[in-house]
C-alpha cells in the first residue's frame, strides 16, 4: 500500500496536494469537482493517444487511492453500500405490465419530447414498484397453518382439539349456535369480517358481532328467506325473501322493500361498485346500485332458475351456474353472457372464484370438483368427490371449503397442486346450507340445518389487513369517513369488463363504430338531422299535393346544397392540385447544383 502511495505521488504531481488531508471538507469537495472536470476534459480528448494513456494512469491511480483510503482509516466504508436490495419475488408482486421493449421503441424515430415523457413514466412506475415492494416490509403478520404429527392426518384433528390448543381468544372463535327451529341457515360476513348475518330459511334473520358474540338485532320476517347479504357496511343488509327483496338496517328496521326485484334466490354485493347483484327464480339477473337506489341493469338470462351464483372479486363479473352444466359470466353492460363454459356433465351445484381472479372452482351433479383458470377459460384440475359438493367457498388465502351433506372439508392448494386428501374436515349436525370464510380471520362459518357453526381453519384468512380499505378494528367515526371516501371512489358499473385493465387501453375503433356505440348508449342519434314536417297552412294550402310539393322543394334544396358543396370541394381540390403542380414545375425548372453533371 505504501508503494502505491509513493507511485501516485511521484507520477502524478497534479494530484499530489489532494493526498494531504484538506483543512475543510468543502475544500476537498471543490478539489474533487475540479478533478471531475479534468476527467471530462480528458474524456473529450480521447483521440490523442498519449493523453489517453495518461488518463488511464490517472484512473488507475484514483482506483488505487480509493482502495487505499479505507485502509488508512480516514473513512469508514459502508459495508452495505447503496439502497437495500429488494427481493425479486416481492418486486414481481407489484409489477404492472412489462416495460416497453427497446426493440419496439425505435428511438431515432421518436421525438425528444416523447422520449422524455416515456423516460419519466418509466422512472415513475419503477419507483412505484420499488417503493411498494419496500413497504411490503410493513406487513408483519404471517399466516398460520395446521401441522399434524408423523402419520397423523391433519384432517383427523377435531375442532375441539384445535380450540383447546390455541389461545383463549382464538379458541373462542370456535362455537356452535343451535338454531334448529328456523331451519337451514345462510350466512354472510361483512367486508371487515367483524359482523355476521344469519338468515334462516323459515324467516329468522339475525346479525351478530360475532367476535364479541353481541347480538345486534334479531327479527323474524315471517316469510321464507332465500339469501342474506351485507351491503357496503354493517349498517345495512339485504334479505331476499319469498317474493321481494328487502333492505334492513342493523337494528332490524325495514328500510326498503324493492318490488322490482322479485323471487330473488341468490345475491352478491360488489363492494367497489356499490352494486347488489341478484339472481332470481325467473332467470333474471338484476343489478341494484345501493348508493343511489336505482336498478342499473336487468338481464334476462333465459336459462331457468338461477340458484348458483358467485362473483369474481378481481373484475366484478358475476358467475352463474346452470342446470345444463354451464357456467356463464355476466356484466351489467351486456345483455348476453360474456362467456359460457361447459363445466359439468350434470348441473352445476356451486361456483367459487378466488380473490385474485385466477381460479374458478365448480362442483356439479356429476360429483366432480373442477378447477379452471378463469383468465384463459381452461380446465386445470378435475377431482372426483364421492358425494359431490353442494357448497363451495374460497378463503382469502386460497383454501377451499366444500360441503358434502353434513360434512365440511377444507382443501389446501387445490388450484396449484394435485390433492388427494382434505386439509381439514368436520362433521356437523345438519345438512350444510351456507358456507363462508370470514375475512381476516382463520374462521369458516357454516350455516346448516341445526344452526350455525364457526370453525377454526388455520391459514384461511389474510393476516394483514388494509386499514384504509377494510379495517376490522375501525371505530364508528372511521367507518363514516371510510363510507364517504368509498362513495367518492365508487366505480361506475360501465367499467365492469372481463379485463379490468381494459380502461387503460386505447380504443382503436373507427369513428362509425364509436358513433354507433354512442347511439346505443344514448338511445338516439345526436347527429341525426331533423325530419322536415310541413307546417299546416290554411285556406286550402295544406292539401296533400301542396304538402308533397313543399316536402319535395325542401328535399330539392337540401340536395342542391349537397351538390353545391361537392362541386365547391371539387373545384377546391382542382385548385390545390394545380397549385401543387405549379410548384412542382417551378421546382423542376430550378437548376440544381448537380445539374452540371448531367448530360
Amino acid at each position: 500500500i505504501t508503494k502505491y502511495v509513493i507511485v501516485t505521488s511521484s507520477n502524478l504531481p497534479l494530484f499530489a496536494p489532494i493526498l494531504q488531508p484538506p483543512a475543510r471538507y468543502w475544500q476537498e469537495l471543490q478539489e474533487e469537482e475540479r478533478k471531475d472536470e479534468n476527467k471530462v476534459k480528458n474524456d473529450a480528448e480521447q483521440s490523442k493517444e498519449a493523453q489517453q494513456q495518461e488518463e488511464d494512469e490517472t484512473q488507475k491511480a484514483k482506483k488505487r487511492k480509493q482502495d487505499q483510503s479505507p485502509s488508512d482509516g480516514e473513512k469508514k466504508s459502508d459495508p452495505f453500500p447503496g439502497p437495500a436490495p429488494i427481493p425479486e419475488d416481492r418486486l414481481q408482486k407489484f409489477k404492472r405490465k412489462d416495460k416497453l421493449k427497446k426493440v419496439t421503441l425505435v428511438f431515432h424515430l421518436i421525438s425528444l419530447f416523447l422520449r422524455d415523457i416515456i423516460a419519466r413514466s418509466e422512472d415513475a412506475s419503477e419507483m412505484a414498484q420499488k417503493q411498494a415492494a419496500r413497504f411490503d416490509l410493513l406487513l408483519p403478520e404471517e399466516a398460520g397453518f395446521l401441522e399434524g404429527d408423523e402419520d397423523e392426518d391433519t384432517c383427523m384433528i377435531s375442532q375441539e382439539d384445535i380450540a383447546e390448543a390455541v389461545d383463549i381468544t382464538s379458541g373462542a372463535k370456535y362455537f356452535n349456535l343451535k338454531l334448529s327451529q328456523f331451519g337451514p341457515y345462510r350466512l354472510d360476513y361483512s367486508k371487515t369480517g367483524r359482523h355476521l348475518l344469519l338468515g334462516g330459511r323459515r324467516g329468522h334473520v339475525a346479525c351478530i358481532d360475532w367476535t364479541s358474540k353481541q347480538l345486534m338485532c334479531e327479527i323474524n320476517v315471517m316469510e321464507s328467506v332465500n339469501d342474506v347479504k351485507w351491503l357496503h357496511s354493517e349498517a345495512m343488509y339485504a334479505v331476499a325473501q319469498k317474493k321481494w327483496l328487502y333492505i334492513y338496517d342493523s337494528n332490524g328496521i325495514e328500510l326498503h322493500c324493492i318490488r322490482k326485484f322479485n323471487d330473488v334466490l341468490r345475491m352478491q354485493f360488489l363492494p367497489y361498485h356499490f352494486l347488489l347483484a341478484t339472481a332470481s327464480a325467473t332467470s333474471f339477473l338484476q343489478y341494484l346500485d345501493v348508493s343511489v337506489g336505482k336498478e342499473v341493469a336487468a338481464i334476462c338470462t333465459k336459462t331457468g332458475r338461477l340458484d348458483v351464483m358467485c362473483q369474481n372479486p378481481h373484475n366484478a363479473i358475476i358467475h352463474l351456474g346452470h342446470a345444463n352444466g354451464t357456467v356463464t359470466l355476466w356484466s351489467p353492460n351486456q345483455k348476453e353472457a360474456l362467456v359460457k363454459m361447459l363445466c359439468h356433465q350434470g348441473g352445476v351445484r356451486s361456483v367459487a372464484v378466488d380473490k385474485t381472479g385466477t381460479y374458478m372452482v365448480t362442483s356439479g351433479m356429476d360429483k366432480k370438483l373442477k378447477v379452471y383458470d378463469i383468465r384463459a377459460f381452461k380446465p386445470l384440475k378435475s377431482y372426483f368427490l364421492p358425494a359431490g359438493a353442494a357448497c363451495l367457498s374460497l378463503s382469502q388465502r386460497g383454501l377451499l371449503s366444500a360441503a358434502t351433506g353434513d360434512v365440511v372439508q377444507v382443501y389446501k392448494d387445490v388450484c396449484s397442486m394435485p390433492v388427494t386428501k382434505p386439509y381439514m374436515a368436520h362433521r356437523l349436525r345438519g345438512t350444510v346450507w351456507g358456507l363462508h370464510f370470514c375475512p381476516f380471520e382463520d374462521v369458516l362459518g357454516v350455516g346448516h340445518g341445526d344452526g350455525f357453526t364457526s370453525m377454526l381453519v388455520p391459514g384461511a384468512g389474510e393476516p394483514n389487513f388494509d386499514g384504509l380499505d377494510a379495517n376490522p378494528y375501525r371505530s364508528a367515526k372511521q367507518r363514516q369517513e371510510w363510507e364517504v371516501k368509498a362513495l367518492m371512489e365508487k366505480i361506475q358499473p360501465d367499467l365492469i369488463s372481463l379485463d379490468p385493465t381494459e380502461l387503460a387501453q386505447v380504443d382503436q375503433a373507427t369513428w362509425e363504430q364509436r358513433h354507433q356505440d354512442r347511439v346505443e348508449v344514448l338511445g338516439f342519434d345526436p347527429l341525426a338531422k331533423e325530419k322536415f314536417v310541413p307546417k299546416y297552412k290554411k285556406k286550402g294550402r295544406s292539401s296533400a299535393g301542396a304538402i308533397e310539393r313543399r316536402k319535395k322543394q325542401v328535399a330539392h334544396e337540401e340536395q342542391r346544397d349537397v351538390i353545391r358543396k361537392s362541386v365547391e370541394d371539387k373545384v377546391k381540390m382542382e385548385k390545390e392540385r394545380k397549385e401543387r403542380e405549379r410548384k412542382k414545375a417551378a421546382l423542376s425548372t430550378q437548376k440544381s447544383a448537380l445539374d452540371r453533371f448531367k448530360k
Partner: protein
Amino acid sequence: MAKVSKKKASKKKTRSGGAEQSNEGHPDVVYDDEKEEDATDEDITVEDEDEHDERKRQKLLEAIGTLSGKRKKTLGERSEAAVHMSEFTVNAEGEGDKVDLSDLIGSIEKTPGLSGKSKKRLKNLEQSRKTIECPLSKQESERIRRDLAFQKVSKEVSHWKSVIRQNERAEQLVFPLNQEPSGPKPIERVVMGWKAQTPLEQEVFTLLSANKQPINDPILTPTEEASMKAMSLEEAKVRRAELQKARALQSYYEAKARRQKKIKSKKYHKVLNKAKSKDFQKQFDEMVKRDPAAALEELNKMEMARMQERMSLKHQNSSKWARSKAIMAKYDEGARKAIQQQLEVNKDLTQKLVTSLNKEEEETMEEDGNADVVPDFVNDAEQGLDFSNPWMTGKLSQDCVEKETSNAVTIRAEENVAEEEEVEETEEEVLLREFDSRRKRRQAQEADAAVILTEEEEEENKDASDKEEEELSEFTSLFKGIAEGCGEADTAAELEKELKIRCLEDEELLTQDKEAEEEEEATDKGPVVPQHPPATENGQKTGKSRKRRKGIELKQVLTKGAQVLQVPFAPTIEDAEDSEGKLDQRGLIKEAFAGDDIISDFLKEKRKQEDAGKPKVVDLTLPGWGEWGGGGLQPSCRKRKKFRRKMTPPPPRKDQHLPGVIISEKRSSSIRLHQVNALPFPFESPSVFENTIRSALGRTWNTERTVKKVTKPKVVTKLGAIIEPMTREELVKDKNRASAGSSSSVKS
C-alpha cells in the same frame, strides 16, 4: 385624415391633368377664354361683395346637391389652368411641352457664381443618355424593409430557442427563476458568501483593498510576496552572464550557417547531405526506442515529403530544363548524365522506405515489451491488409490463378487430345476434386433423404395408428353409450373424451349419432351449407389439422384425469333435508342422463353463435333482368354466381381453440366511451401510450412519495412573487449549462 386630404389632392391633380390634355386640342380657344377672363377679372375685383354672395350660393347649391344623394363633381378653387375655370387662374407658358434637362441647366451658363467643376459635371449629366431607374414604390420598399427587420428580429429571437425547448421539456418549472433553495445552508457557505454591507464595513474594505492588504486569508501581502520573489545581486549577475553567453553562441551559429549556405560546391553539399541523412537515421533509430510518438511524426513527415514529390513534376523530365537537356542528350554525355541523375533523385524521393522502418519499429516495440502502449495506427499499413480482397494484398492470390488455369485446362482438355504432363496433372487433380465433392454431396443428400423418409414413414405410421385409434375410440364410446346409456359415473372419463372428439368432428358424429337432428339441421341450413362448403370437401388438409388438434385434445384429456378425493367421513345425511323433493327428483333424473344432451346442446349453441358471427352472402341478383322472368322461373346459375357478393371473413373467434367455451364477440360499448380514442399529442403508437399509463397514480396503490412524484405540478409559482421575464444573462447561463450537459451526455 391626412390620407384623405392627400387623396383629394391627387384627384385634383389628375383632374387638372385631364383638363390640360383637353386644352392641348384647342389652345387658341383657351387663349380667347383667358382673355375674356382677364377682362372679367377686373369686374370681379370691383364687385367683391357680389363674389362673396356667389360663393355662398355655390355652397348652398353644393349642400342641396349632397342632399339629393348623388355626388356632384366638386369644383374647388383652382390654382392651375383648366378648361372650365378661368377666373383666378394664371396661364402657364409653354403648357403641354415636356420639361427638358437643358431647360433647367440652360441658365447655369449665365450664372457666374458656379464653379467650373460643377458646370462640367452638369454637362456630363446632360450628355449621358442613361436614365436613372425610378425609385421603388413605397409599398415595395417598405416590404423589403419589413423583411429585413423580420430576419433580424427572428435571428435575435432564435437565440432563445434552446431555452424554450429546455423549459418545454423540463419536468417541472419553478417560478420565479433563480430562487435560492430554501432550507438551512451550511455555515461555511454563509461565511464565504458574506459581503460588506454597512457603510463602515465597506469603508474598511475599500481601505484594505486600496492598500493591497489580504482580506480573506491574511498570510502575505502582495508586496511582501513580490519582495520574497526578488533575487539577490549575485544571482542576477550569474543570470546575466548566462544570457550573454547564449546570445553570443546564437550569433556565432547564425554566422556559420550563413557562410555554409553560400558555399556552391556540389561535392560539399553531397557530403553534407549524406552526413545529415546518416545523422538523421541515427537519431531516428534512437527516437524509435525512446519516443515512438515523435518517431511516428517524423515518419509522417517523410511520407508527406514523398507524397509531395510524387505529386510535383519537379524532378520529372517535363521541366523546361529537362526538355532542353533531353534534346541535347543525343549529343552530350553530360546532359544525359544530368537527366539520369535527376531521375534518380526522383526515384530516391519517391521510394517507399516506410515499410522497412515500420517493421523495424514493430520489432523494437516487441522488444520493449509494452505492446499495449503502441498506438494502433502504427500497424495499420501492414496489418490492415484484407486477404479476401486481392487488390489489397498487392498481388493476385495463388488460388485465383490456379482456378483460372484449371478452368482453362478443362476447356482445353475437351478440345485437344494432346496435352502436357503438367496439364494432365492438374486435370487429374480437378477430376479428383470433382469426384470428391460429388461424393460428398451425394452422401449429404442421401442422409437428408433418409432422415426425411424415416420421418415421413414415422409420421405416416403415426397418422395411421392415430386414425385407427380414433376410429376405435369412437366406436367403443358409441357402443358404450348405446349399451349403458351413459348413466354411470365411472364412464365420465370416456364421456369427456367423447366430448373432445365431438368438438372436433361434431358434424360426422352427429350424423352417426342422431340422424333426425341432422336432418333437421339440413333442412334448416339447406341454403347455407352449399355456400360454406364444410371441411369435408378438401379432405386432406382438414384431416391433418384435425389430427393435430386431436393430439392436443388428447393431451388435455390425459392431464385432466379426475383424481379421486378421499374423504374421512362419509356424509350421513344425503341431502335428505331438501324440502323440495320434486327438484331433487328432477336433479336425480338429470344426473342419470347427464352428459347426453348437455354436450350436444352446447355444441349446437356454439355452432349457432359461430354462424351468426359469420357475414352473410349478399345476393344481388335481379330476377327477370336480362332474361325471361316470371313465376317458377329461376334466374340462371351464372347470373346468381355473378351477383353474389361474398363478405370478408371476420377475425378468428377468441374461443376457436376452446371447445367447451363460448366467448361473446359483441363489442361492449359502455367502456368504450371511457377509453381514450385519440392519442394525445406526442404519442404516435398506442402501445407506447398504454405503457406510459400502466401504473396507477392514486394513494390506494402507491406510497406517499410516489404519489407526490407522479402528481408533481408542471409549473410551480410562488405566491405573491413577481415573475419577471427572462434576462439575457439567463440565456448565457443556460448555454453554458447546456454545453456542460451535452459533454456529460457524451461522457455517459
